[in-house]
């Protein structure tokens, strides 16, 4: 059995498989199917400062091998989150990666401050700054679409999280040059990157001839987008290996359904892998992917998971 442990900028995890933000709620729901403490880390839904109702429904549309969602970051706000969800996760012995967001860069900071001050802070192994959300101060443009906004948020978040706890910037693939955004985030002090968030998409309801989502656009996720996630991870890892981008751990996310899918992201450069949409198909998916990924590592004869991270960059076919 291979050693599945992984280290993410100082955070040591027993294994590299996590839930994906917004695809596992607060943990209680999945606990009915497997103990969430068995995962490398549990990633919370993105939490903002204030309670949010989210968007009207329909909030989802099924798409070929994927789906669109437009939840609108519904949630109880950071205070209720810390008191209830985080405390519960801590009681389970889960390692938690808390996803945070704000309508403005400063609001990210407020959320993080209250999080760090929470009694349950001890179970937090990292903070994921979901910068793939709209920046109210900049015409609603997504933070992660702009290097300057990305930098600003990450700098604030990094400044308020104790240095011993890593901060990950979660990037959107909907940009011309993801390496440039990665560089901005790392330059501002991010310990690592989570890639990727959903792609912007629209589905038209062909009976009503109007957008199927009440919010018109939604985020595309699921196996359909896996090749885009692998590509983004590959590009950023390649830049790190070429020395044109500071080296930092990457958490891969996008379309993982099986251990083989996870292995694709890992071989492209991810030191950990999140399982999102596939959980809707199979509530045990994150736990099952861990078992299957272990089997894949064994099948290939590796002793340590860490040896497989980024391996495809070394095995390229030389045409």
């Amino acid at each position, binding site marked *: 059995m291979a050693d599945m442990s992984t280290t993410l900028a100082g955070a040591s995890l027993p294994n590299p498989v996590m839930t994906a933000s*917004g695809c596992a*709620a607060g943990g209680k729901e999945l606990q009915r199917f497997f103990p969430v403490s068995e995962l490398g880390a549990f990633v919370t839904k993105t939490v903002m400062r204030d309670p949010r109702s989210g968007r009207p429904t329909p909030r989802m549309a*099924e798409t*070929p091998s994927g789906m669109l969602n437009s939840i609108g970051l*519904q949630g109880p706000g950071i205070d209720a989150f810390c008191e209830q969800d985080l405390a519960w996760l801590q009681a389970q012995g889960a390692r938690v990666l808390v996803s945070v967001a704000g309508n403005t860069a400063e609001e990210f900071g407020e959320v993080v401050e209250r999080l760090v001050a929470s009694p349950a802070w001890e179970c937090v192994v990292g903070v994921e700054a979901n910068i793939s959300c709209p920046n109210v101060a900049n015409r609603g443009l997504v933070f992660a679409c702009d290097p300057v906004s990305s930098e600003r948020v990450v700098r604030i978040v990094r400044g308020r999280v104790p240095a011993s706890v890593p901060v990950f910037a979660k990037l959107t693939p909907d940009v011309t040059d993801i390496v440039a955004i990665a560089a901005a985030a790392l330059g501002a002090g991010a310990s690592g990157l989570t890639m990727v968030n959903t792609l912007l998409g629209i589905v038209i309801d062909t009976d009503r001839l109007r957008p199927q989502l009440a919010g018109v656009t939604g985020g595309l996720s699921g196996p359909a987008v896996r090749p885009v996630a692998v590509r983004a991870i590959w590009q950023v890892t390649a830049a790190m290996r070429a020395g044109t981008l500071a080296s930092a751990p990457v958490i891969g996310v996008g379309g993982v359904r099986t251990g083989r899918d996870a292995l694709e992201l890992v071989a492209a450069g991810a030191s950990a892998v999140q399982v999102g949409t596939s959980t*809707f198909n199979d509530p045990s998916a994150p736990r099952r992917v861990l078992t299957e990924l272990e089997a894949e590592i064994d099948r290939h004869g590796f002793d340590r998971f860490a040896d497989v991270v980024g391996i495809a960059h070394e095995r390229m076919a030389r045409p």
Partner: protein
Amino acid sequence: MSSGVVQVTGELIANRRVGAYHHLTVVAPGVAEPAAPGQFVALAVGGPTSANLLRRCFSLHRVKPSGTYGGTVDVVIAAHGPGTQWLTALRPHDAVDVVGPLGRAFPLPSEPVSCVLVGGGYGSAPLFWLAETLRERGCHVEMVLGAASEDRLFGVVEGRRAADAVHVTTDDGSAGRKGWVSDVLGEVVERTAAGVVYACGPMAMLRSVTEVAQAHGAVAQVAVEESMACGIGVCMTCVLPVTGADGLTRMVRSCVEGPVFRGDRVRWDAIGDGISRVPDDAVGAPRPGGH
């Protein structure tokens, strides 16, 4: 684990056509035992090569906790899109991946009050089991079953066995009285002095059932049908605005806090045209100039 929800690979043992619907029986050990009327199951569709990732949800029509085959669950499916077409085309011995039982069941009255059960189309599926459960508790039970046309009525014969009386309406008059369930409901509630009206069917029907029940002093318990991506409470797609005991309206998940809600708690004013809006007074509603 504690909650009694399981995921099992079941086996289809029967698939019979009933009017416009298909009645499927699936061996699904562990699902039947903890189930109660009003709960539902989420079925995976398309098999191992499927492009349809999301599960489809169906009310439990009946369950048999044990028997020749081990626990079985019955569902009644209207073939509609790709998932329900796939399910209704299954043959005996095919595998069916089941998650359940899910959601909040119909709350049962503690006293043997009179009850009216209203089903629209396949929405009647969970009501016969509910009727039997209520009658076991000494309740007088009448049913109102409605549909667009006769072939879309489900369970009229079964209703006659399960309930004290069955009233039928169809939009086109092909069976029973021509009209809507709400046209006859008031009279039934009144006559039976019903304390609770249980309903399952399209949103517009649930709304008028709630109104009629209220007008006649009964409590409505309605099982809603919001589009669900996960069915288990993790995705937040299935919400609708519901007023809580504290008087505040929240967008609540119909898969875990529902599908059964008290009708007078549902914010019907914000629901319609296939959309559930966020009422301005809802907790965390968007404010001008911000979220």
